[in-house]
């Protein structure tokens, strides 16, 4: 293809978003469906390299950098946006369509950004466009949740900006390549600021609650977009900027392990999936931290697979929410009778996230685990194994079980709209194809050179043992009534600090300040009153002061005399 015909990769999706503002009905749907294809075709036309470079205030900007890593995420985001668009076709809400497409465009722009300033622009656009998918739910909860989401996302952007300014000052270049954490002087601060900016978007422990807070409050269709882009852009950014930083291994393994405990006791099934999203990102972050070719390949391959299978699971739960208006495990159950197709699709997603052989999670997850063993991270490997069993437990079994089986909730509904079913079917088929024919599909796109053969008897057998005995644990606990029942509840997490503690503290502080202020005001008023009262003789019916007893003309004569005397004195000097 002639390179003159090419446009910046984010542009087709952004133009699609603009078209969605103006168009309505079938024309809008047609344009939205075609947009990701045009975008992907446009990508195919690019050779590796830098495009549209220009100078800005003495710095070289590289808004479009094409290489294997950015291309892989670029194709992924076009695929994900297509599935999410199909899933959302039935709704008439312009806000959601426009926000969804613009959000996807921002994600594409971010992964092709060759310099930190361009990255920052798309980084902020990701936040600004996606928050409308939360607000589009139009509930009070979604409204306040969206605000918390936006504040935290913008904070991440501000940190990125601060970090990149320091970096540009020290190194004289804005180029976004390996950043690393080993620097001297002030560049060290810049590197850590960028690291934390990425970390917030990646849902690092203690800054992860924007995800579990906002994603389950978004619309059923909006969550599909949300689960696909923000965190994956952050994973890409880490793979580009901080590959091989050992601290990431430990952060990642924490992310893989702690959310599964919350997922087991969480009632809102989309929030369960939000916790499991953090758990899956944990695997990717471990892979990036290990930093060998096979680990990095495993990390980005897992990101690719995760978008599809997590999207599929989110879509099935979105379908349940859309059809029944309920999403709490305590209110659902027995839906397999009225939604058999959705049930099967959900189970495909569950098998994929649990890494069953022949499903997409299997290959990418075992790449990361093998890399952990090969590099001598024994404890990490054991913890990841535990996390892998835990994923099956909460996402693989709990989600389908409490939504579609368990006790019959009495809810009778129908399958979701056809477009939703089609979107879920596409994702489910992809899960099986990526899992069964890895070499011909996702793994042909992998950026680093490394050979890995997932389908040997050892991997298949050990993985099946792990999964079946995790399931056995679920069966055993259930039969003995030891499994924690689904309860309508809120579980405290790190967001308690800024949703309860900080407001309570601020309230008390504000009350104290206000109390001091009112006391001060009262005492001043009392002082003035006393002064007024002391200057008036109530019995005599006249003021106490000497001048107050005189006529105003007499008082004035006195003051004129004083003034003239003063003037005379000044004149002599």
């Amino acid at each position: 293809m002639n390179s003159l015909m090419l446009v910046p990769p984010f542009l087709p999706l952004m133009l699609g978003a603009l078209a969605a503002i103006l168009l309505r009905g079938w024309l809008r749907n047609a344009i939205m469906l075609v947009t990701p294809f045009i975008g992907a075709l446009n990508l195919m036309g690019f050779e590796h390299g830098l495009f549209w470079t220009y100078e800005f205030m003495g710095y070289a900007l590289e808004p479009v950098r094409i290489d294997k890593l950015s291309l892989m995420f670029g194709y992924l985001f076009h695929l994900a946006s297509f599935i999410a668009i199909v899933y959302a076709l039935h709704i008439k809400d312009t806000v959601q369509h426009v926000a969804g497409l613009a959000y996807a465009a921002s994600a594409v722009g971010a992964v092709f950004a060759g310099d930190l300033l361009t990255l920052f622009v798309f980084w902020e656009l990701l936040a600004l466009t996606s928050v409308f998918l939360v607000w589009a739910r139009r509930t009070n909860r979604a409204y306040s949740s969206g605000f918390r989401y936006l504040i935290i996302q913008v904070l991440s952007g501000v940190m990125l900006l601060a970090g990149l300014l320091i970096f540009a000052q020290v190194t004289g270049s804005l180029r976004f390549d390996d950043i690393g954490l080993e620097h001297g002087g002030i560049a060290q601060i810049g590197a850590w600021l960028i690291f934390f900016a990425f970390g917030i978007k990646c849902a690092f422990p203690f800054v992860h609650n924007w995800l579990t807070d906002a994603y389950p409050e978004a619309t059923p269709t909006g969550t599909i977009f949300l689960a696909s882009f923000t965190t994956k852009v952050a994973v890409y950014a880490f793979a580009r900027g901080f590959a091989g930083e050992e601290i990431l291994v430990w952060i990642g393994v924490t992310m893989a392990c702690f959310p599964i405990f919350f997922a087991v006791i969480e009632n809102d099934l989309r929030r369960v999936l939000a916790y499991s999203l953090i758990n899956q990102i944990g695997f990717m972050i471990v892979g990036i931290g290990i930093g060998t070719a096979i680990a990095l390949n495993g990390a980005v391959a897992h990101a690719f697979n995760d978008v599809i299978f997590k999207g599929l699971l989110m879509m099935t739960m979105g379908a349940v929410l859309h059809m029944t208006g309920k999403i709490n495990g305590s209110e659902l159950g027995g839906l397999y009778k009225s939604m058999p197709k959705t049930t099967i699709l959900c189970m495909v997603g569950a098998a994929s996230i649990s890494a069953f052989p022949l499903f997409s999670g299997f290959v990418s997850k075992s790449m990361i685990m093998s890399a952990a063993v090969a590099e001598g991270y024994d404890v990490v490997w054991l913890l990841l194994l535990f996390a892998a069993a835990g994923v099956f437990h909460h996402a693989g079994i709990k989600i389908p079980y409490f939504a579609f089986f368990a006790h019959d909730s009495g809810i009778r509904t129908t399958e979701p709209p056809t477009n939703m079913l089609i979107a879920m079917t596409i994702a489910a088929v992809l899960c099986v194809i990526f899992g069964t024919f890895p070499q011909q599909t996702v793994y042909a796109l992998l950026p680093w050179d490394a050979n890995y053969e997932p389908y040997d008897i050892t991997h298949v057998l050990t993985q099946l043992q792990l999964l079946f005995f995790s399931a056995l644990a679920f069966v055993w606990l259930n039969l003995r009534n030891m499994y924690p029942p689904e309860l309508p509840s809120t579980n405290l997490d790190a967001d308690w600090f800024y949703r309860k503690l900080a407001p309570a503290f601020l309230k008390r502080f504000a009350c104290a300040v206000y109390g001091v202020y009112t006391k001060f005001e009262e005492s001043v008023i009392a002082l003035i009153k006393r002064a007024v009262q002391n200057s008036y003789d109530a019995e005599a019916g006249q003021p106490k002061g000497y001048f107050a007893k005189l006529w105003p003309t007499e008082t004035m004569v006195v003051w004129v005399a004083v003034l003239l005397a003063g003037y005379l004195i000044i004149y002599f000097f």
Partner: protein
Amino acid sequence: MTEHEPSGFFDKPENVSKLLKVFYVICAVLVAADFAVHRHIYHDWEKIPAFYAIYGFVGCVILVIIAKEMRKFLMRGEDYYDE
């Protein structure tokens, strides 16, 4: 609920117990395979017979027990943040 709804597959306890039996057999076969098949060993712990099966089962039971304990001090009412 409709009056003459055909009862679902999982409404019958005999179906459930049949499925569970199949499941138990698969689990047993997987453990038996561990002795028949020569696995590659990458880590010393993998030498333990049926290591993955034991680890998966024990791991999940511990996971659930800890999560249940967490409820005691983390669980609040549904409207906790809305109050």
